[in-house]
């Protein structure tokens, strides 16, 4: 038994430094927004199962109970999903799989992360032992290593990398849920303080609180909720490690290419079919190499793709119309869920000031998580379409 699965509702709260909201407050807000978003209405009792995406930075949501409490959904299967920075999209994938398999007709995905409840900061507050176990490799170092080698191998310029930040901040300035709404120039990116050479402050996503929720339903029940569903046509998930891959892992993420291949194969399309994408730009260089890993251009040509304007809001393949993680923020468990919601809005023509043109039919969502002492990545790719 394998059934078609559609997104029928999506909700998120405005991302930001939300000192006045607890993890439960944020999760509740996103859940209620998703319920209210369902065109023809939905009752909480209709939800058969829930997946809660969080890496539990706040330290009080280590199980599915973290989603039961803010939603009032008890007495049904609820589980927490964690997959580093790919947590949100992995939770979405889990919900889709449960509906596809027939174990649920309607499933909830709830992603939330309280990033700003600690005064110490993520890097400076990290346990020394853990930092050393990863040989001192912090997140900007892990991604910055790809930038250095990409510039060395392909002649990618600092300016091309900075343009990712300029583009995403321009988009984020128009997106109501974004944490940062300012715009910036290439000069400002290149002259912002160095975090980890070659990456500067404006190459890095901010530390942001947030929550997002998505409701998916099977082909058997979708008509009772909406006449305008967005179908989940492909879902890929893969892992790879610097310790086993070749030099391709120094200039990109093999797990992303593997996850994309799985998703494209299920959807029976290639990368050229994608009209709009929300991809993992935790750092500028991450987005640039992801163009290549997803097949939007050949390996080494990410810099040219951004120079040519292809990925701009009005380009032929807009990437991160929401402003991406760089402007919108990266509340880890919520990030992938919010990206799915943004693609859902784009494909329904509801994306407001960041709506891309030409009635997009196919959208792609992509997350990368790093882990295991910073040796590798897990990547998740979901492909959505207005076509069933």
């Amino acid at each position, binding site marked *: 038994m394998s059934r078609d699965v559609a997104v029928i509702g999506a909700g998120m709260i405005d991302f930001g430094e939300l000192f006045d909201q607890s993890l439960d407050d944020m999760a509740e807000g996103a859940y209620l927004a998703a319920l209210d978003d369902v065109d023809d209405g939905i009752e909480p009792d209709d939800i058969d199962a829930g997946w809660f995406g969080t890496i539990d930075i706040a330290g009080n949501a280590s199980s599915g109970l973290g989603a039961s409490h803010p939603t009032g959904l008890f007495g049904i299967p609820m589980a927490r999903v964690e997959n580093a920075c790919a947590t949100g999209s992995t939770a979405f994938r889990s919900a889709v799989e449960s509906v596809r398999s027939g174990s649920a007709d309607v499933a909830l995905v709830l992603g939330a992360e309280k990033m700003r409840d600690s005064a110490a900061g993520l890097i*400076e507050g990290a346990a020394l032992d853990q930092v*050393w176990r990863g040989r*001192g490799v*912090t997140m900007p170092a892990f991604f910055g*290593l790809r930038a*250095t080698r990409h510039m060395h191998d392909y002649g990618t310029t600092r300016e091309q990398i900075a343009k990712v930040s300029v583009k995403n901040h321009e988009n984020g300035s128009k997106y109501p849920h974004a944490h940062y709404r300012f715009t910036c120039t290439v000069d400002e990116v290149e002259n912002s303080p160095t975090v*980890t050479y070659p990456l500067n402050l404006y190459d890095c996503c901010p530390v942001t609180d947030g929550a997002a929720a998505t409701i998916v339903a099977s082909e058997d029940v979708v008509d009772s909720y909406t006449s305008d569903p967005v179908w989940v046509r492909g879902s890929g998930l893969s892992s790879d490690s610097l*310790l086993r891959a070749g030099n391709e892992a120094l200039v990109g993420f093999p797990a992303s290419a593997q996850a994309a291949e799985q998703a494209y194969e299920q959807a029976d399309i290639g990368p050229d079919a994608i009209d709009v994408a929300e991809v993992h730009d935790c750092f500028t260089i991450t987005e640039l190499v992801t163009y290549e890993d997803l097949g939007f251009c050949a390996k080494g040509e990410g810099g040219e793709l951004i120079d040519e304007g292809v990925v701009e809001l009005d380009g032929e393949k807009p990437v991160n119309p929401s402003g991406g993680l760089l402007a919108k923020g990266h509340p880890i468990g919520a990030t992938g869920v919010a990206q799915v919601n943004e693609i859902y809005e784009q494909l329904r023509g509801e994306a407001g000031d960041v709506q891309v043109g030409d009635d997009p039919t196919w959208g792609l969502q992509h997350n990368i998580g790093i882990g295991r002492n910073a040796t590798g990545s897990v990547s998740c790719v979901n492909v959505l379409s207005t076509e069933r």
Partner: protein
Amino acid sequence: MHEPPHWRDRAQNERLVARECGECGYVSFPERREICKRCGARPEWAEVQLAERGTVQSYVVQNRLPDAFETPLPLAVVDVPQVGGGEPARVYGLFTETDPEDVSVGMEVEADLREIFDVSGLPVHSFKFKRPRGDRL
């Protein structure tokens, strides 16, 4: 005296001991698993000694780290050859005694055994990389 996680990893951390897959030649360091990560076989593993030098494959310079680190701190992916030939091991390496401006892709580096941190006063030793003495400007 060592805390258990560091006691378990002493051979890799302190003596640069790695293992080579008898099927595909992959060098596993610091992990010591039965199944080869690269070819998927369950091979005979040969214990091999890594050289105390290597070649920088990529690098960054970290400026924001916990207080216990001196910054700016270069960090690299380094290919470390085996003593006596075969494939190199690919490792993360922190630098010491090296001007961040001097680090580049392709540069040769030396490995030095250092105390890298302590856990509750118990020292943990491992290798750090530096520009070879003869090459200093």
